[in-house]
């Protein structure tokens, strides 16, 4: 800096130059967003191993703290079992859905509905947006592991989010509690559709908003909401959460409710990604 100061450029000129540079970058990335993907990918490939490393260090330390109370082996076993419980309870949910379907809903549909056991891969959450305003996180799998944009991300037995960007060894996931997130949902018992929208204001209460429920829908508190058949990006029948506080809107046309997600977003460490994309339904309304 000392040597550079001798050249003596007016700081004002540097300021003006770099502000212009930033503004043109903003405009360019608005117009040609995809052009920046290689740059993002390159930087991410350098940074994400570091994040992963630090994460491992952090996990290591917190694991060690836990062992003060528990025996190491039990802890490991517990973790494995928990993972299994998550997978099993997810599968159980699917079976339950099949049961509901057999019990009565099948008559409502001309077509047979299948809740397939989708192929999944597990990934670790390695970083979160540095900002407090968003709920976007990064996982340690990418194109190398066969992930694609719009794949659904589960945690435990519920929907956690959707992949929005994929790079070589990491991808970015937008969680369903993010302020920008919209998921088309459906009440499992009555098949009424609704829109599940993330809302920053409700995040503290651990809830998200459910909108556009038909006013004729016969629903009660604690009904399950799953991803609907009309969603273009989310596979059908993934549990989102349970509704509460159902209210009629002032328009008298639709109902609004709150939803408690089954996923604990405060403590999201491991997620499962369904490596199957929903086939595009081009004539459907595009709500994701």
């Amino acid at each position, binding site marked *: *800096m000392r040597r550079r100061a001798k050249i003596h450029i007016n700081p004002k000129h540097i300021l003006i130059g770099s502000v212009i540079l930033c*503004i043109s970058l903003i405009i360019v990335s*608005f117009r040609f967003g995809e052009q920046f993907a290689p740059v993002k990918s390159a930087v991410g490939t350098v940074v994400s191993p570091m994040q992963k490393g630090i994460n491992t260090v952090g996990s290591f330390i917190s694991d060690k703290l836990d062992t003060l109370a528990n025996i190491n082996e039990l802890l490991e076993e517990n973790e494995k079992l928990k993972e299994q419980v998550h997978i099993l309870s997810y599968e159980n949910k699917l079976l339950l859905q099949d049961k509901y379907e057999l019990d009565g809903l099948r008559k409502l549909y001309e077509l047979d509905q299948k809740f397939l056991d989708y192929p999944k891969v597990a990934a670790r959450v390695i970083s979160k947006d540095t900002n*407090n305003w968003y709920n976007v996180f990064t996982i340690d799998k990418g194109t190398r592991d066969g992930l694609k944009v719009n794949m659904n991300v589960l945690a435990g037995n519920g929907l956690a989010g959707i992949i929005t960007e994929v790079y070589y060894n990491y991808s970015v996931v937008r969680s369903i509690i993010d302020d920008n997130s919209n998921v088309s949902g459906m009440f499992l018992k009555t098949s009424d559709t609704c829109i599940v929208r993330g809302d920053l*204001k409700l*995040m503290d209460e651990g809830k998200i908003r459910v909108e556009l429920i038909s006013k004729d829908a016969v629903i009660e508190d604690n009904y399950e909401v799953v991803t609907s058949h009309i969603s273009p990006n989310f596979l059908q029948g993934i549990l989102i959460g349970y509704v509460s506080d159902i209210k009629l809107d002032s328009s008298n046309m639709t109902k609004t409710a709150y939803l408690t997600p089954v996923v604990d977003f405060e403590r999201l460490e491991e997620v499962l990604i369904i490596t199957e994309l929903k086939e595009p339904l081009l004539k459907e309304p595009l709500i994701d």
Partner: protein
Amino acid sequence: MKRFIVYTLSIVICFVLQSAMFHYIALANVMPNLLLILVVSFAYMRGRITGLFLGFFSGILVDIIFGNVIGLYALLYLLIGYFIGFTNRFYSNDDYTLPIIFVAVSDFIYGFFYYIFEFLLRGRLDFLFYLRRFIFPEIIYTVTVSVFLYKLLHMINNRLNARENEEA
């Protein structure tokens, strides 16, 4: 050159800490803004140009990894760095309170503009809620961290200065 390496390293370390340690250091869902502390501290200690460049590079790193639009954070950090750089004329070697006040002020400005760009423009009007829930807790947390981080950065800066004086 040594200074350049130190700057690069500290940007990367702050960024990685901030983004990857969230599980262990977040309180009430709020993270301290380490990059902002870095930018403000060096701008205060070294002046406008350093603040501007550090702000630009930290912002561009955040943009590239997380942003949808490249350049927005860079612009915000850069302007904060530049304007805090004006306070360099009040710089005194053993004043540890002034930089912390600057950190608080710039974190408020950062939060405020962030709200305008990303929330107000999407029609989220309840500014008081966001102020209470996000901006203030972030300021408090950031200020607390900056008490320690500033001392560390100050030490690094003094050491760099000493070495450069020897060379000259």
